[in-house]
């Protein structure tokens, strides 16, 4: 079974802190994604990557950056966390010609 692992289920950070959210997949998938999920807004794509060191902006990249140094790992970085970045963050991966996404369990981030 494909496994997508997010490093933390719950995270509490202070405004202005630099925050790293880590995601690792074990199925050698080329594509990896970061979404955030907010009540009433559904899932919104922040960034995605289709290869090592490649990244593309999604619909809401402002305030975020990403890193993909190894194929299995895709990191989401909040350079200076703000309260409006309090959200559920979901990582996903897929094969290059695959059509479905495999999701991690999510990280609930609270920025105080």
């Amino acid at each position: 079974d494909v496994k997508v692992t997010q490093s933390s289920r719950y995270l509490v950070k202070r405004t202005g802190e630099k925050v790293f959210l880590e995601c690792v997949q074990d199925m050698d998938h080329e594509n990896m994604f970061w979404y955030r999920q907010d009540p009433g807004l559904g899932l919104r794509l922040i960034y995605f990557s289709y290869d090592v060191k490649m990244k593309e902006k999604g619909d809401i990249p402002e305030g975020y950056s990403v890193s993909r140094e190894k194929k299995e790992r895709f990191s989401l970085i909040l350079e200076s966390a703000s309260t409006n970045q309090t959200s559920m963050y979901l990582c996903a991966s897929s094969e290059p010609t695959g059509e479905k996404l495999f999701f991690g369990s999510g990280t609930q981030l609270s920025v105080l």
Partner: protein
Amino acid sequence: SQQGEEDPQALSIQEGENATMNCSYKTSINNLQWYRQNSGRGLVHLILIRSNEREKHSGRLRVTLDTSKKSSSLLITASRAADTASYFCATEPSKGIQGAQKLVFGQGTRLTINP
């Protein structure tokens, strides 16, 4: 931008009844997918239907797609308490980014199955 919109936003039925959720979208698509999310967890893929398909079945799930109306429905038959979850439709636009599909998710339908 929000592509898929589910209807209703919330649905509460008795165990054993059928549950129907609908999804509408705006642009042409390659495929439409349904995902389930248990409370506070990640999403799990349920079923995919391609733009040239009209109906698909998987166990107790039945999905229909009407591209002329840009809509889809998910039917769960003989519902169980374990079906309680949020259900999301996701569309892959037909003019997607090469090299990585870019699914667009709706806001979801919250389904509650009462014992």
